[in-house]
């Protein structure tokens, strides 16, 4: 059908012009205005980490430190065993990530490729459990860990994310990715005499690198930022992870010691932001994947 191009009215021509040119400026202005509440908290957090306590409360609010007080960062480590908290957070996040990668790639592959009775039922069960928030299942999990004398240890902080909701999402992502790998590659592997394990380990897993990277990003961040589990399972301050440690930087009346707290917060958030700045495409796409799971 030939397209009929109607002669445009003057009004439409003007609006088309605005659409073509003025619109861009408008969009930039709007984006800049909207981004202020997204950037300002970071800006304020990082700059205030360099201010003396009094300057943080200065009127009017200052965008840059008037006097730079680097001792804030030293105080962080003397106020609390912060280096230890940092180490706790790192080693727990690494173990959670490695564990999740192993378990989710194994089960994701089996659900995608191996025929066994009950597989779709099991997979449905896994997904439906995502409806129940972790805050709820943590109640019976707490009584379980209590019975096993595992409260006030890092074990619940490591195994619950691997096997709970975070691990289930990871398995789902792995399964989706494995489904997209051409089956002919596996058939060729079998013909070459590889076992199922050999096909998985030598052929499929190396091809699944993008999915493994996504699971690594999502799981590491999940563990690094995790707050509820350490809040509930850990009493001993030496065993704290960063999020609970940040919250406890207060004076004896429970008031925040802002200069120390903000320096500690900056030390917690900044490494993540720096990595994010370099790997933003990977990070954003990994999160977009979890959204599409529905």
């Amino acid at each position, binding site marked *: 059908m030939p397209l*009929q*191009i*109607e002669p445009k009215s003057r009004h*439409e021509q003007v*609006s088309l012009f605005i659409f073509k040119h003025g619109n*861009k400026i408008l*969009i930039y202005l709007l*984006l800049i205005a909207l981004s202020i509440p*997204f*950037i*300002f*908290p*970071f800006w304020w*957090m990082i700059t205030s980490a360099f201010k003396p306590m009094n300057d943080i409360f200065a*009127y*009017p*609010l200052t965008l840059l430190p008037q006097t730079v007080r680097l001792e804030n960062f030293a105080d962080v480590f003397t106020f609390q065993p912060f280096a230890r908290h940092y180490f706790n957070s790192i080693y727990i996040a690494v173990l959670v990530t490695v564990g999740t990668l*192993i*378990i*989710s790639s*194994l*089960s994701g592959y089996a*659900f995608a490729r*191996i*025929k*066994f*009775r009950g597989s779709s039922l*099991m997979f449905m069960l896994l997904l439906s*459990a995502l409806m*129940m*928030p972790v*805050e*709820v299942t943590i*109640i*019976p999990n*707490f009584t*379980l860990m209590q019975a096993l004398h595992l409260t006030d240890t890092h074990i619940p902080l490591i*195994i619950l994310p*691997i*096997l*709970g909701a975070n*691990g*289930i999402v990871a398995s789902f992502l792995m399964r989706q990715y494995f489904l997209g790998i051409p089956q002919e590659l596996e*058939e060729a592997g079998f*013909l070459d005499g590889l076992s*199922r394990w050999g096909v998985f380990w030598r052929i499929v897993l190396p091809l699944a690198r993008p999915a493994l990277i996504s699971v690594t990003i999502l799981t590491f*961040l999940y563990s690094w*930022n995790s*707050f509820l589990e350490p809040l509930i399972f850990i009493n001993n301050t030496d065993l704290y992870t960063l*999020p609970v440690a940040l*919250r406890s930087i207060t004076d004896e009346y429970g008031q*925040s010691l*802002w200069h120390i707290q*903000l320096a500690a*917060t900056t030390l917690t958030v900044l490494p*993540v932001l720096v990595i994010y700045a370099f790997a*933003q*495409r990977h990070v954003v796409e990994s999160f977009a994947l979890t*959204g*599409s799971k529905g």
Partner: protein
Amino acid sequence: MQLTRPFRNMSLAQKDELTGYLFVAPQMIGFFLFVLGPILAIFLFSTQQRDLLSGVVKPIEFANFDYMLKQDRIFPKVLINSLTFTFWLVPLNITLALALGLMLTRKMRGMIFFRTLFFAPVITSTVAWAVVWRFLLQGDQGINQILASVGIDGPNWLREPDTAMFSVIITRVIKTVGLNMVIFMSAIQNLPREYEEAAEVDGASPWQILLRITLPQLAPTILVVMVITVIGSLQVFDHILLMTNGGPANATAVLIYYIWFQAFRVFDIGYASALAVVLFGIVLIATAIQWVLRGRFSYNEH
């Protein structure tokens, strides 16, 4: 799978099946122990009087639910709070996410930069986010200093019931809107362009294209994102604990906060479990709605 498989041998197929079970075993055992078991336990606990610290357990049938519906003054308030929270958070989040998604998918310079900015709060620790905003929302600091400079006397945002709920919602939207934004962005980028191009050639205005072509095409995505956001909004816990601790005067105590409060502050895990059963029911209804909507718009899924 009509092709001849390399192994038609029965015993090898059985061996493969065994491998399948072995591969899923760690996940499934963990699932039964730490996810499904606890979900079932919640239902059992809800019929018990159960103390977290002493471990004393007494079966009391439906007394927890009886107390919840007839005597507990906080329960209705908590339900209304959850409803209010969801009612405001979901449309604000989705409208902003959609607007940002539509702008950031334009072919213009710097859109990746802006996407990075708007997404940054999503990867940031909720504790860090709350530390900063609790300062900025104090009576005589941050936001109110900015407002004062234009002659507005701002309230003590987190200490007054009405503004506390408002503040918690807004700061939560800023924290998480990036997630829905990137979901919309990938949906928009996957839309067929022909219709929009044809409409443009036909002289449709940008608004007409947006309202008559782009948005209807996005409708299935919007609906699914909406239900995910509703379910997510019912599970917002750490943000509220850290920003307001449920206060002032329970003004921001939502259902999930109340469950945690009963379990880990009052140590009454029987009653907390009964409340959890209610939450489970609400989430189940939301999920059922999602399934119905998905069925209706299934043409867009693969």
